[in-house]
């Protein structure tokens, strides 16, 4: 039984693409057959984050316009056998595809893949409508900022209006030190505002920037963000994974605090 998941946020820059790359890779590492579709036509990024940019020959629009077969456009990941990417076109815009066409495409992919992840563009226009058209389930990504939460709320409303029932929330780039100082909304605050099921919390981690630049998703690695994405993947599969304690201090931190005289 395959599942189509759209990763969306409304606001730009909160980590949709990073989340898609990491969740997709994570699910593939858990032996699921996964395809990621970049629906951000005209501003494609997912290929870069995955380090597959140099392999693109055909893209989503070519498939929809029947310039090539679907199989030709799918790019197999260099490391994971069962992870594929369908890149978007860079020279076109969102109007090149209709929701109906997306739905057909996704249905075609359902036969072969366990999970189909749709990386949604920012905004609520055509691109968003295309992305959510074929989805069974949504992951709404937000950061603990008022503006991102406002947009996420609007997105949740739109998803519900489109009869997408299964909506989960990912809070990205949270910084515990700031939450403690009272300078940042806490996980609970965000959940209270949005009242959506929380599926993961990803701490702000500089490893993310490094991995994005390198084109290697960090899911499964030892860093906090890597672990966070791994648990998100497991939760998507239906496992019960306890939320990790972000407050665990390393030895270094303890030493630091010792010298500060705390």
């Amino acid at each position, binding site marked *: 039984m395959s599942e189509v998941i759209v990763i969306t946020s409304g606001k730009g820059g909160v980590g949709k693409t990073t989340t898609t790359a990491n969740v997709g890779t994570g699910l593939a590492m858990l032996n699921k057959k996964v395809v990621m579709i970049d629906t951000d036509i005209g501003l*494609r990024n997912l290929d870069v984050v995955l380090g597959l940019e*140099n392999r693109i020959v055909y893209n989503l629009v070519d498939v929809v316009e029947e310039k090539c077969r679907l199989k030709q456009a799918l790019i197999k990941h260099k490391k994971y056998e069962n992870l594929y990417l369908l890149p978007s076109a*860079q*020279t*076109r815009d969102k109007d090149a595809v209709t929701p109906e066409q997306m739905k057909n495409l996704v249905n075609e992919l359902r036969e072969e893949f366990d999970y189909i992840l749709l990386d949604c563009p920012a905004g609520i226009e055509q691109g968003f409508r295309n992305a959510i058209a074929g989805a069974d389930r949504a992951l709404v990504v937000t950061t603990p900022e008022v503006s991102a939460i406002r947009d996420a709320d609007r997105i949740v409303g739109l998803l519900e209006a489109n009869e997408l029932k299964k909506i989960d929330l990912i809070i990205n780039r949270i910084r515990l030190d700031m939450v403690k100082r009272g300078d940042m909304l806490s996980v609970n605050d965000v959940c209270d505002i949005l009242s959506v099921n929380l599926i993961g919390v990803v701490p702000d981690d500089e490893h993310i920037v490094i991995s994005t*630049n*390198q084109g290697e998703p960090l899911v499964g690695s030892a860093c906090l963000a890597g672990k966070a994405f791994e648990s998100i993947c497991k939760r998507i599969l239906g496992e019960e994974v306890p939320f990790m304690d972000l407050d665990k201090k390393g030895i270094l931190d303890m030493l630091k605090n010792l010298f500060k005289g705390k």
Partner: protein
Amino acid sequence: MSKHVVIKHNRYGMELVLDSEISFEKLLEAVSERFQASGDFFKDRKMAVSFKGRKLSEEETMSIVDTIMANSSIQIVAITDHDSELEKKMERQLQTKGSSLDTGIPERNRGRQNHSVEEFSDFGETDNQYNAEFYRGNLRSGQVLECSANVTLVGDVNPGAKIISAGNIVVLGALKGNAHAGINGNDNCFIFALDMNPIQLQIGQYYAKSPDKEAAKRRILPKRKTEKEEYCAKIATAQEGTICIESMKKTMFRLS
């Protein structure tokens, strides 16, 4: 009155739209007729002239200019080409459509750059092999520059952008995106760039992609280039079924 020659005015002077169907002799006649009729209108003005609608050789251009001067009191001080207009057109198209530029590029006169191109003519012959189109500016992500002739881009091709040509491609800048030379299947074309760092290259039927990034231990971003490395121009050609990139040498284009 003849419709074979149409005079249009522009900022710098006039533009002659020439009929490409009739013979050159007929055309000359038409030009002289046209200017006899309207030559007085221009009085003794100094003008720049450009031609459109018909490919002209250098000799043909000169004889048309002579005909104009003989039949009117206009002084032609310069022969211009369409560069500036082309550029504007290109810019407009890129901005509005952000898509391919396959239309609207008027056929160019044989440019001044003929001589230099002719010498390389064993590389990448195209239908109009003596033509080279010049473009200035950077191609940014999503922009595509398509040319039916050889093309020289004074600027960079950024990742996500593509430069396509029926002939050779010269990038006087950094090639960091995609390039396809000899799109009609000509394997003899070359791609030249001052900074050769493409994502994908295609020459005729051959295709090459950049190597994958190695899992860098420490340094993620490419090393800052030192002064010496900065101008290491490279040229890509198709050899024995693969695309080879070599450093540019002085002797490479020397005629044997």
